[in-house]
């Protein structure tokens, strides 16, 4: 099975979020970048497990600049066989999906994996867009994926519950919590990742459909109002009369 896993870089979950250039750019100073957790913990690890069970290969693809390469090496250290970097800034979800779909079209994968969303843009867009461009089925927010020959059985979150679905390859899936357990790369993996192939390919021509104009931080939270554990009645009074939420 040929598996393609989309990898995005994201600021570490504990990063301080602020902006520069008149609030038009994320301030990367001092920020540690990681593999977007949904891409890593769920999508990539499940793809590697499937390869271990059924044979085949796991390729990662990232739309990004040279600055993304440490994150790509991390994905290789976890166990991907080779990586592709489309040499372009990831401007918006559509142009990112377009680049990935272009590569997938000419290389024929059985499954394209994405994480459910990135933790910086939270868009949940790229997977569905790749599926549309490739004209393939899209299983979104899958929490379980098992293969039997060319048929996949997936558990998928739906409005108000979940469902079990079957789909034949090729298809696109977005991975949510539950699909796999995080893997910490070992020293052998980290050493091997240094020499695994990382191919840089030029970007195809595509204009972004949307632009981020500016960013702002939420207004500072007002001070917490402390109440005594013996005065729960006052809390209920405040929730009812002051906050008016009950």
């Amino acid at each position: 099975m040929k598996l393609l896993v989309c990898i995005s870089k994201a600021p570490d979950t504990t990063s301080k979020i602020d902006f520069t250039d008149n609030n038009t750019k994320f301030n990367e100073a001092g920020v540690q970048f990681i593999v977007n957790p949904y891409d890593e913990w769920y999508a990539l690890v499940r793809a590697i497990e499937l390869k271990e069970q059924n044979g085949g290969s796991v390729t990662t693809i990232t739309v990004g600049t040279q600055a993304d390469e440490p994150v790509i090496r991390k994905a290789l250290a976890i166990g991907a066989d080779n990586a592709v970097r489309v040499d372009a800034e990831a401007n918006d979800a559509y142009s990112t999906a377009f680049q990935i779909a272009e590569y997938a079209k000419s290389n024929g994968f059985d499954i394209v994996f994405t994480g459910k969303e990135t933790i910086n843009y939270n868009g949940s867009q790229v997977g569905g867009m790749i599926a549309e461009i490739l004209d393939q089925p899209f299983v979104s927010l899958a929490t379980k994926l098992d293969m039997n020959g060319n048929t996949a059985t997936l558990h998928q979150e739906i409005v108000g519950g979940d469902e079990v679905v079957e789909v034949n390859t090729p298809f696109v899936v977005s991975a949510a919590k539950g699909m796999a357990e995080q893997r910490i790369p070992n020293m052998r993996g980290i050493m091997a990742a240094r020499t695994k192939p990382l191919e840089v390919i030029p970007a195809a021509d595509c204009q972004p459909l949307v632009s981020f104009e500016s960013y702002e931080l939420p207004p500072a939270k007002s001070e917490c109002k402390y109440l005594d554990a013996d005065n729960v009645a006052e809390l209920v009074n405040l929730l009812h009369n002051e906050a008016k939420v009950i």
Partner: protein
Amino acid sequence: MSVLVYIDTLNGKIAKNALEAVQYGSKIGDTTVVTNGNISDSALQVLGGVGAKKVLVNKNLKSNDASQVAKLVKAAAEATGADTIVFSSDLTGKAVAPRVSASLKAGLVSGAIGLPEGDGSVKVNVFSGKAFGKVTVNTDKKVIALTPNAVGVVEGEGTAPVEAFDAEVGQSSITVKEVKRQEGDVLLPEAELVVSAGRGLKGPENWGMVEDLAKALGAATACSRPVADIGWRPHHEHVGQTGVAIRPNLYIAAGISGAIQHLAGVNGSKVIVVINTDPEAPFFKAADYGIVGDAFDVLPKLTAEIEKLKAQN
């Protein structure tokens, strides 16, 4: 402006986030709603009251297959000449909106939390709720996916005719083997009130007091990641960065320290109440009201006080 709003009514009900999306659309322009599945015409009557001018329903398509629903939405957009297509950013919206956007090459704004402003930009949640972004769409047609519980709903008097809508949606390549829907309980993603607890509760056998409080309030229950990971509570209750992100009006957290990853899933809540024995718990910094105390002591008292309040009203 002509607006088309897609809502998922497959379970035969119209969820609050669907009403929000319809009202949101009606504030942008003349709004037609499109939906599919086993929804009765009488249930759809409510949509006129939140601003819809017309409702198109395809009862033959009883699937949430993103490919088929996208084809239905595109056909409806063509039939109505819509220049803006609105989804609720619920589980179906997240699957379908990107397909519609890519197919029409219409820019998709996802995670919208406000109406388009004068310059056409839309405010969205980014960095898992730790910041907002302003997004502009570079194409004539737009797709907007609205964050649930970001805008209020006011029900009015309007009515909207319901019409059957036929569309060529093709065959699904996805076979549904089993559907499990939660019944009865308040669903977490659309709950206005949420009671949540973490490791401070010491074991799954102590969740009765969390459920009692939730029941008294009419709230949904939720939990922190460690609690879901060790199997005390089901995964669908896990709120946080890697679980469900929620924006209820009231979030009560008992025995949860408030790691930054947990906050990322709840920082859109309007009011946060934190109950923790540790006065240094980071969650207090994000709280509106705090009680330094033992959940085992405070939760039952809180339930009794809520019941008292409900009895008075």
